[in-house]
């Protein structure tokens, strides 16, 4: 803990609780309350209503929510497949090629999402690949943005794994394909689930690139929330945020249960 006396430790704990409460818990609580507030002029909301939440789970808002869920699922599945494959393919290799591939795969992590969005917009607004105005450009942006996280999660897990475990299987007569399917992949399952969860959460919350790229028929929930708050509809925005949080949480819990089961085996 670095601090040894009882008093200073208590002071630190109290300080932490206050700061954490003010900057993390309070905004979330306010959003929760605002989502059900009929009006809010004083310290607390003046009356409660379910109208905002009802609006956020129907019509355009519902469509946005579904778009977000589909985008996140596709981006997450794509990034686990691509990032996981890259991690497996590069595992064990060393030298310049490995460093180059590592750098390229981590690049989108270092580049601001606005830059990724602008880059895609400029690159795909003209033939031969005209993707601007289609949902594909949003999906590609999300995939590009979450791929580094999937890759590094799986890659780190493979680095930690005992390199001899694949050799054991080979000594027992397993072909390389069999080693991959029956030993290496099952052992990496917790990491794959973790990377899927991370990709899902990141994609559900992505705004920077999406707002530059989204076509009218593929508006994600964060874009909707931004639009609502931009025109001052704070209660509606709060209600949509609650929906966003709820959907993300459900997805993460589902993946977490996969991970726990895989780790327990």
């Amino acid at each position, binding site marked *: 803990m670095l601090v040894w006396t009882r008093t200073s430790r208590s002071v630190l704990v109290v300080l932490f609780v206050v700061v954490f409460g003010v900057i993390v818990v309070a905004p979330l609580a306010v959003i929760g309350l605002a989502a059900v507030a009929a009006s809010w002029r004083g310290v607390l909301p003046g009356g409660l209503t379910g109208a905002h939440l009802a609006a956020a789970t129907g019509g355009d808002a519902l469509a946005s929510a579904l778009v977000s869920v589909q985008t996140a699922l596709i981006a997450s599945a794509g990034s686990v497949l691509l990032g996981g494959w890259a991690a497996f393919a590069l595992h064990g290799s060393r030298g310049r090629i490995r460093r180059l591939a590592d750098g390229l795969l981590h690049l989108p992590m270092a580049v601001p999402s606005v830059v990724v969005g602008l880059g895609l917009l400029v690159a795909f607004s003209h033939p031969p690949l005209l993707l601007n105005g289609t949902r594909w450009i949003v999906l590609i942006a999300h995939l590009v943005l979450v791929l580094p996280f999937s890759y590094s999660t799986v890659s780190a897990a493979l680095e930690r794994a005992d390199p*001899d*475990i694949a050799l054991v*299987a*080979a*000594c*027992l*007569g397993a*072909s390389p394909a*069999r080693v991959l399917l029956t030993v290496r992949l099952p052992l990496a399952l917790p990491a794959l689930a973790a990377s899927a969860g991370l990709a899902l959460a990141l994609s559900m919350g992505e705004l920077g690139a999406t707002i530059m790229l989204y076509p009218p028929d593929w508006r994600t929930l964060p874009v909707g929330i931004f639009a609502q708050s931009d025109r001052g509809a704070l209660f509606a925005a709060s209600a949509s945020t609650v929906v966003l949080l709820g959907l993300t949480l459900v997805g993460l819990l589902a993946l977490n249960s996969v991970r726990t089961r895989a780790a327990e085996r």
Partner: protein
Amino acid sequence: MRPDAALSARLVVERAGFRLDAGLEADPGEVVALLGPNGAGKSTALRALAGLVPLSSGHVTVEGTDLTTTPTEHRPIGMVFQDYLLFGHMSALDNVAFGPRCQGVGRARARALAADLLDRFGLSDQARLRPRELSGGQAQRVALARALAARPRLLLLDEPLAALDAHTRVAVRSRLRGDLADFDGATVLVTHDPLDAMVLADRVTVIENGAVVQQGRPADIARRPRTAYVARLVGLNLYRGVASGTRVEVRVADGGPVEVTIAERRYGDVFVAFAPRAVALYRERPGGSPRNAWPARIDGVERFGDQVRVHLDGDLPLSADVTPAALAELGLGVGDRIWAGVKAMEIAAYQA
């Protein structure tokens, strides 16, 4: 190269700053121990036999079949790695069934084979358990069963007992000896523990700096070390005999049986072992009852660190470590007739 050898290999592996060049031969059913200090190349030799490390030159022949260029997964080998490396996502049963499955045996039949094998190993209660639920000794035996289930013709064991605590090691070592006796192919085991080599192996190959420095039966190696490393390594007097209570009749190659008194009761075939430093030398026959005393003649004296190692010839050939001062006080020299004494408490005796 003998045509009837179960294993015949010359392993040359060259790496930056390191060269392994070792010849290995084994008869059917024979257990060969590769003994050597860390970095001597014994694990590299084992991996080269498995095809996990490419040979720079040389050959690997198992039961007349040349495997030099055969990929690992097609070699008829069973390998037990140092930390056993059981597949954590499979039950003990599925771990053992893995080898047969790779050979195309159907799932049900592979599992039946594995269950049989685990049963023979006394592990049927553990068949359903995950590796992390097994004790160290159980994991070692599951790993051995997994290697044997693939019906290998060459069994490779990398430090099979190093991952166990000292208490478990004794029991697992003697069981391993029994398991290896049932295997009719050649076994090569790597160890840095001289006791493992003495108990488990029919033949010992000592490797230092990538080269074989000594080969022979364990007893021969123990009696006539050729390098300081081997002498230090086998710093034990080890004999085999038949125990009946606290009395052990030790058979010595040349001469009749010698009686050794031990502290705890044992029965049947046993090993008795004691360290040279446990031996005391006397001018006259010493008194005291739990003490072993054998007449002997001093065969050789050599300095050995800050001790003097006295080689004794007699009914029971043995080495004794004494201080130079003690030797001077007794006024002993080569050829003198003396008595060697060892307290029964100092003698380890265990089932052979």
